[in-house]
C-alpha cells in the first residue's frame, strides 16, 4: 500500500517530491492567527501592522496596590502582610506573565483596525500542527505551531450605556439623526476629558456617513409610517364606532335577542382590531376618552362577564384572593370618580358659593357633553361587550361616563344596565365578603347565591323606593356607598347629591335623605361636634 504514487502505472502521473526539514530555532516560535472570514482580512494588503501584548498589569494587581512603597503614605511590611492575608484565604497569587497576555494587533497605522488575539486552548492537544513553507532551495521547511490566537476586532466606537440607551429610546421618533446623537455623546465626553481617541472621529467618519444617511431615512420613514398607522387606525376606529352606533340605534329594541350574535360579531371585530394594530403605548391617544374613570362601568362589565361565563366560582375565588385589595381599589376608584365632589368636601363646606359655581359649571359642561355622551355611552356599551371576551376592564374603564349621565341613562331605555352599573358598586365589597364567607363554609351553590345577590341589586331600589328618589339618583344604595367609603356628615352627604343633577329642591332632597338614612340606620359618631354617619362594609 505504501508509496503507491511512484510505482503507479498511471497515464501521466506527474510526481513532485520535496524533502522536508525541520529547522531548529528555539527562539522563533510560530503561531497561528485566526480571523473570521467576515472580517475580510487580507494579509497582503496590510501596510503598517503593529502588534503588542495587552497590558493587564492593572487588572492583575488590582486597584488597591497603588500605594507608595516608601515615605509618605506607606505602611511598614504591607506586602508581606497582604501576602499572609491572602494565604490565609487560600489565595496563592500567580506571577504576572506578560507573554500570556492577548495580542493587540493594529493594522493600517493609527486609524486602522484593531484586533485582539486571544489564545485558544486545546487545539493541539491530540495532534501536532506544522506549517510547511518553501525554503529557498526548493525543500520544504516545517515549523511547529505553538499557539493559536483568535483575533477579533475591537470596537472603536463607544456604545450607549443602558441608561443612555433608555433615554434615547424614549425619544426614538424625535431623534432623526443617529450621527448627531453619537456626536453629542462624544462632545459630552470631551467635556469630561475622557480618553476619546481622535482617530475614532476621523476614521469612522467615512463609514458612519453612509450609515447615517441610511439611518436617517429609516427613522423618518418609521415616523411617517407610525403617524400613518395612527391616523388610519383612529379613523377606522371612528368609522367603526359610527357604524356601531347606527347599528345600535336600529337594533336597540331587538337587542335582547340579537345580543349574543352581536357580541360574536364584535368580538370578531375586536380581534381584527388587535391584529391590525399592536397595542403600542400612545395608540390610544387618538381616541377620545374621559379620564374620569368610572369604576361602576367596569364593574357592570364584570357583572356581565359573570353572567356570560356563569362561572361564579372563578370570580369568587378571585375575590377571595383579593377581596381586601379589591374593596380598597374600588374605594379609590370611586373617590377618583367624583373627585370634584371630594375636593369640595375636603374644603369642609366653607366655600359653598364657589362650589355651587363649580357645580353649575359642571352641569353646563355636562349638558354640553350630553349629546356626545349619550352617543358615547351607547358606543361604550358596544365596546364593552366586545371587550368582554378579551380583557376584562382595564382598557375600557377609562372611557366611562361621568355620574351625571346615569339618571339620564336610566330614563332612557336601558334601566337595567344602568341600574346595575349604578348599584353594583356599593354592595360589591359586601358581596366579596359574602363570597368569602361562603367560600369558607364551602357551600357549592355559589352561583346561585350570586344570582340572588344580583336580584337584590335590581330590586333594592324598588323596595326602598322614595318619591323622587330614583329619578334624582338618590338611592339607598348610593347613600350606602358614600357612607361605606368614609364617615361623613349629613350636610356633606347632601352636598354629594346636590352636586349631581337631581332636579330636586333642597327641601325635597333633605326629605328623601332623611328617609333613606332612617332606613339604613348608619352608625353615628360625633367628632368635633359634628355627627358623622358611617356604615361598616359588611353592613348589608
Amino acid at each position, binding site marked *: *500500500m*505504501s*508509496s503507491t*504514487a511512484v510505482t503507479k502505472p*498511471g497515464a501521466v502521473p*506527474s*510526481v*513532485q*517530491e*520535496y*524533502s*522536508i*526539514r*525541520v529547522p*531548529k*530555532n528555539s527562539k*522563533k*516560535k*510560530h*503561531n*497561528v*492567527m*485566526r480571523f*473570521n*472570514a467576515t472580517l475580510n*482580512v487580507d494579509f*497582503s494588503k*496590510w501596510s*503598517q*501592522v*503593529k*502588534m503588542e*501584548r495587552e*497590558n493587564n*498589569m492593572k487588572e492583575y494587581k488590582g*486597584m488597591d496596590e*497603588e*500605594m507608595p512603597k516608601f*515615605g*509618605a*503614605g*506607606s*505602611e511598614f*511590611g504591607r506586602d508581606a502582610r497582604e501576602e*499572609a*492575608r491572602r494565604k*490565609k484565604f487560600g489565595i496563592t497569587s500567580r506571577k504576572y506573565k506578560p*507573554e500570556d*497576555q492577548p495580542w493587540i*494587533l493594529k493594522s493600517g497605522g493609527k486609524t486602522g483596525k484593531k484586533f485582539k488575539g486571544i489564545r485558544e486552548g486545546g487545539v493541539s492537544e491530540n*495532534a*501536532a*500542527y*506544522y*506549517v*510547511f*513553507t518553501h525554503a529557498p532551495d526548493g525543500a520544504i521547511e*516545517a*515549523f*511547529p505551531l505553538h499557539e493559536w490566537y483568535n483575533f477579533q476586532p475591537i470596537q472603536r466606537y463607544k456604545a450607549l450605556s443602558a441608561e443612555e440607551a433608555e433615554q434615547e429610546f424614549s425619544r426614538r421618533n424625535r431623534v432623526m439623526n443617529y450621527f448627531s446623537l453619537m456626536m453629542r455623546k462624544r462632545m459630552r465626553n470631551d467635556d469630561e476629558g475622557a480618553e476619546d481617541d481622535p482617530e475614532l472621529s476621523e476614521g469612522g467618519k467615512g463609514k458612519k456617513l453612509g450609515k447615517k444617511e441610511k439611518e436617517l431615512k429609516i427613522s423618518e420613514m418609521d415616523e411617517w409610517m407610525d403617524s400613518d398607522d395612527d391616523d388610519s387606525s383612529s379613523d377606522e376606529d371612528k368609522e367603526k364606532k359610527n357604524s356601531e352606533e347606527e347599528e345600535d340605534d336600529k337594533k336597540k329594541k331587538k337587542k335582547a335577542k340579537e345580543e349574543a350574535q352581536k357580541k360574536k360579531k364584535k368580538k370578531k371585530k375586536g380581534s381584527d382590531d388587535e391584529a391590525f394594530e399592536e397595542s403600542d403605548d400612545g395608540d390610544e391617544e387618538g381616541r377620545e376618552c374621559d379620564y374620569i374613570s368610572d369604576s361602576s362601568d367596569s364593574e357592570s362589565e364584570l357583572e356581565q362577564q359573570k353572567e356570560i361565563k356563569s362561572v361564579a366560582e372563578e370570580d369568587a375565588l378571585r375575590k377571595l384572593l383579593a377581596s381586601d385589595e379589591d374593596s380598597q381599589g374600588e374605594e379609590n376608584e370611586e373617590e377618583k370618580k367624583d373627585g370634584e365632589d371630594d375636593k369640595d368636601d375636603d374644603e369642609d363646606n366653607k366655600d359653598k358659593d364657589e362650589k355651587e359655581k363649580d357645580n353649575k359649571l359642571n352641569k353646563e359642561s355636562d349638558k354640553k357633553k350630553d349629546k356626545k355622551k349619550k352617543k358615547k355611552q351607547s358606543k361604550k356599551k358596544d365596546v364593552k361587550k366586545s371587550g368582554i371576551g378579551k380583557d376584562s376592564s382595564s382598557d375600557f374603564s377609562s372611557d366611562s361616563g361621568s355620574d351625571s349621565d346615569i339618571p339620564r341613562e336610566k330614563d332612557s331605555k336601558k334601566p337595567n344596565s344602568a341600574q346595575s352599573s349604578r348599584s353594583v358598586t356599593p354592595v360589591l365589597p359586601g358581596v366579596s365578603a359574602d363570597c368569602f364567607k361562603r367560600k369558607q363554609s364551602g357551600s357549592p351553590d355559589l352561583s346561585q347565591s350570586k344570582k340572588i345577590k344580583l336580584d337584590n341589586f335590581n330590586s333594592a331600589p324598588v323596595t326602598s323606593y322614595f318619591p323622587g328618589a330614583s329619578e334624582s339618583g338618590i338611592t339607598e344604595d348610593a347613600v350606602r356607598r358614600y357612607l361605606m367609603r368614609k364617615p361623613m356628615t349629613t350636610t356633606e352627604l347632601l352636598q354629594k347629591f346636590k352636586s349631581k343633577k337631581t332636579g330636586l329642591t333642597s327641601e325635597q332632597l333633605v326629605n328623601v335623605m332623611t328617609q333613606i338614612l332612617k332606613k339604613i340606620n348608619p352608625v353615628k359618631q360625633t367628632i368635633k361636634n359634628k355627627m358623622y354617619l358611617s356604615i361598616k362594609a359588611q353592613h348589608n
Partner: protein
Amino acid sequence: MSAPPPHTDRELDLSNAGRGVWLVKVPKYIANKWEKASGDIEVGKLKITKNPGAKAEVSLRLSEAVLALKEREEEEIPKAHRLDVTTVTRQMLGVFSHVTPASTSDAIVPETEKLYMEGRIVQKLECRPYADNCYMKLKLESIKRASVPQRQVQQLDRVVQNFKPVSDHKHNIEYAEKKKAEGKKMRDDKDAVLEMLFAAFEKHQYYNIRDLAKITRQPIVYLKEILNEVCNYNLKNPHRNMWELKPEYRHYKDDQKPAATATKVDDSDDD
C-alpha cells in the same frame, strides 16, 4: 528582569505576508520524532502525485534517519502517510512568528523581540496513517497504556512508620532559646527610642505597634507611652490600627495626600 518592557508595540514584518503556506496536522508520534531530529537532516519526503482528471494525491514518507531515532521500548511507527487536503473556509488563517531574545544573550547589542508574518494558510493537510499492521500495533499499545489505571494496589509487608507525638518541637525550643538569649526587653533611653522611631517613620508613614516593638526592641507598654506623645493612632480603616507621626513631627518630602486608596488592613492575624 533585564528584558525589554513587554508591552511595547512592535512592527510586524510583513515581507512574507502574501506567501501561501500549508497547515499540516500530524500525529503526535511524528511530531515527537521531528522534534528530536536535528535541523539539517531530511525528516521526510512529501510527494505530490497529479493524475490528470483526478485530485492530486499528497503523501508523506518519513525518512529512515528519523525512523531510526528511537529509544528503547518505543514502537515502530508507520512510515508512510496519506495527506488529505482541504481548503480553509470561513476563516482567515495566518501564521506569524515571534522571536524572543534569549535570556542569556550576552551580545553587546541587546536583541529585541521580533515579529514576522509568515504567510497565509492556503491549505490544510491532515496526515492520516494507512491502517496497516504497524499502525494497528501502535494503536494497540497506546490503548493498553491508556487502560492501565494510574493508581495501583500495593501490599505492605511491614508497618508504615509513624511518628511519635512530641511534647516540644524542635523549632519551638530553638525559638525559646533565642528569646532567652535576647533577654527581657529593656527600657532604653527615651531619646534613643525616639531616634529609632523617627528613623523608622522616615521610611514609612504607618506602622503597626508590633512592628515598632520589633524594630525598637522596647517593651510595648513603654513604647506606647512614647508613641502617645509623638504619634497618632489611626482608628479608621485606611491604615486602621496603625501609628503615624503627629503632623508637627512629620516632614515628608511630598506630603501631598497620604494615599487615600483604601484597603483593608487587618494586621491582627499574621505573625
